[in-house]
């Protein structure tokens, strides 16, 4: 425990150092690193249900979009009727005082997180009854359905999208603010998740992952914990979506708010790359994935998406245990695991009970 706690401290130190050094020495990279914070957040919150609980969602991006739209509605309704605003196609522009803007932003972020969490609490009991591939396909369908419904919802601008309120102040200050907000959110989420895994709740969702029927037979409130775990992920994704919407300045359903085939799959690939079901694996995976993504963007003009698709397949097919999973197999003692070297190694009994 203590050794891993000090390791955690060092890793937090590294991340905070990066967060401080980038704006000082590489201000051009602020946007890129801000997106990296978001990617870490996505991989980490996906892993709450995916890695720790065994419920592999392909549609967690739905919470991202709901948070984004909830914040848009709240922030715009501060100064205008939302329907009038969207109908005007950007003709209504308001110059905010910073006070007005930040009040709206604060309310918007809160609304984003709460709306996403409430959505998870409402649909969780039904969706989380689905098991295995049915859950994955069901959540994917859900994300696509919500994206399509929002596309047809004229009140929020339909497929045409909405412009978000403009950041008051010098142009460089906006990205910096959202960089800070995303960094703080990701740090807060990681600390929260780290605490969560150290409670009985963490054991309960691990038990659900290993054998849900057994957990039920032992009287664990499986439905309750599954829904809470998903709602926690949803809350952080919702706030993340709200910040990202403001950072983008313009939101629309298919590409920005509910990008099922980009962020939606990236978060899964990142968690798998780093090692799912571990505290730092998703973080590591997100950082590496983001670097690879940026490099391919720069050097493979046009073919970057193809390269990324190929990388995802290779990751899943050939290297599914992830970096930390692989390291854990190789040096178990370093991860605080005890291995019975002399004991009869036999395949885990749980694997037969699919």
């Amino acid at each position, binding site marked *: 425990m203590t050794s891993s706690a000090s390791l955690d401290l060092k890793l937090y130190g590294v991340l905070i150092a990066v967060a401080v050094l980038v704006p000082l020495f590489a201000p051009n990279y602020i946007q890129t690193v801000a997106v990296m914070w978001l990617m870490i957040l996505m991989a980490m919150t996906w892993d709450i249900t995916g890695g720790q609980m065994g419920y592999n969602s392909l549609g967690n991006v739905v919470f991202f979009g709901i948070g984004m739209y909830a914040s848009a509605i709240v922030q715009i309704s501060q100064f205008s009727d939302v329907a009038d605003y969207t109908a005007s196609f950007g003709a209504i522009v308001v110059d905010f005082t910073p006070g007005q803007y930040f009040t709206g932003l604060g309310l918007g972020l809160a609304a984003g997180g709460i709306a996403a969490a409430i959505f998870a609490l409402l649909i969780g009991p039904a969706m989380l009854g689905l098991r295995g591939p049915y859950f994955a396909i069901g959540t994917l369908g859900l994300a696509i359905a919500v994206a399509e419904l929002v596309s047809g919802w004229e009140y929020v601008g339909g497929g045409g999208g909405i412009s978000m309120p403009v950041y008051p102040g010098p142009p460089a200050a906006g990205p910096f603010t959202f960089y800070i907000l995303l960094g703080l959110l990701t740090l807060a989420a990681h600390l929260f998740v780290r605490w969560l895994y150290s*409670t009985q709740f963490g054991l309960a969702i691990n038990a659900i992952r290993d054998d849900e029927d057994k957990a039920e037979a*032992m009287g664990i409130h499986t439905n309750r914990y599954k829904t809470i775990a998903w709602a926690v992920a949803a809350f952080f994704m919702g706030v993340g979506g709200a910040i990202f919407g403001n950072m983008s300045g313009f939101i629309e359903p298919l590409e920005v708010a509910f990008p099922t085939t980009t962020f939606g799959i990236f978060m899964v690939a990142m968690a798998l790359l780093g090692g799912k079901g571990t505290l730092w694996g998703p973080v590591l995976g997100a950082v590496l994935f983001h670097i690879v993504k940026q490099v391919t963007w720069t050097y493979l003009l046009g073919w970057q998406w193809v390269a990324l698709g190929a990388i995802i397949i290779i990751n899943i097919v050939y290297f599914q245990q992830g970096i930390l999973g692989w390291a854990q197999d190789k040096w178990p003692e370093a991860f605080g695991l005890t291995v019975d070297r002399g004991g009869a190694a036999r395949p885990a*009994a*749980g694997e037969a009970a699919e």
Partner: protein
Amino acid sequence: MTGETANVIEVRGVSKSYGGVQANTDISIDVPDGMITGLIGPNGSGKTTLFNSIVGYHPIDSGSIRFQGKEISKLRVPDIARLGMLRTFQQTRIYSKMNCMDNMQISVSHRDTSPFAIFALRDRGEIVEEAERLLEFVGLYEKRFLISGDLSFGQQKLLEFAMALMNRPKVLLLDEPTAGINPTLINGLIDRLKRANEELGVTLFVIEHNMRVIMNLAGKISCLAHGELLATGTPDELQNDPRVVDAYLGAH
């Protein structure tokens, strides 16, 4: 609610069929409080079906099942488990990617706890002590930090038993506790089952194929054959009951 010689489980006239196959027909069995009760019968006689009916895996077609006087035949598995009635599985089930201590810690009782109790930190003193004591009891203390999926089958069975005890159940339903266990270890297991019953006060209801084991263990035994209750009595009575002997020898 319960008298001195109360029955903790009362099964009355339970029938259950699966798609045309009558697995249980009009079965009535009492499990007295604080005792070890056995359930025997040839393969396919409906023992596991009856267990599943009692602990809530499927609806029964007719009849009634009472636990401590409360009708439970319409409750579902987790609700019944939280009332204090647990079962172990014929195909042993544990949380195979977690170590033994974690397996034990998450097996604490989930009844009477506030919804927020789950957010208490793990590795708390009293729970750890209890887990270590019970692992010691089943002889797995040395292996407590191993990933449970790496244990041998027999050790996994013992772990599952210890996990059930961790839950402090009123009644424990054991589905063939000695199946697949090395014969030299069976006596030790019988001893532990008896001690759990005597020292921890857990009522046991045991399905068992091994006649020697069940005769040694149970104070009262019921025998099923072809989904019907054939006989109930003390081990001696059953051993001398020609119907039971016939059922086992296949003369039926």
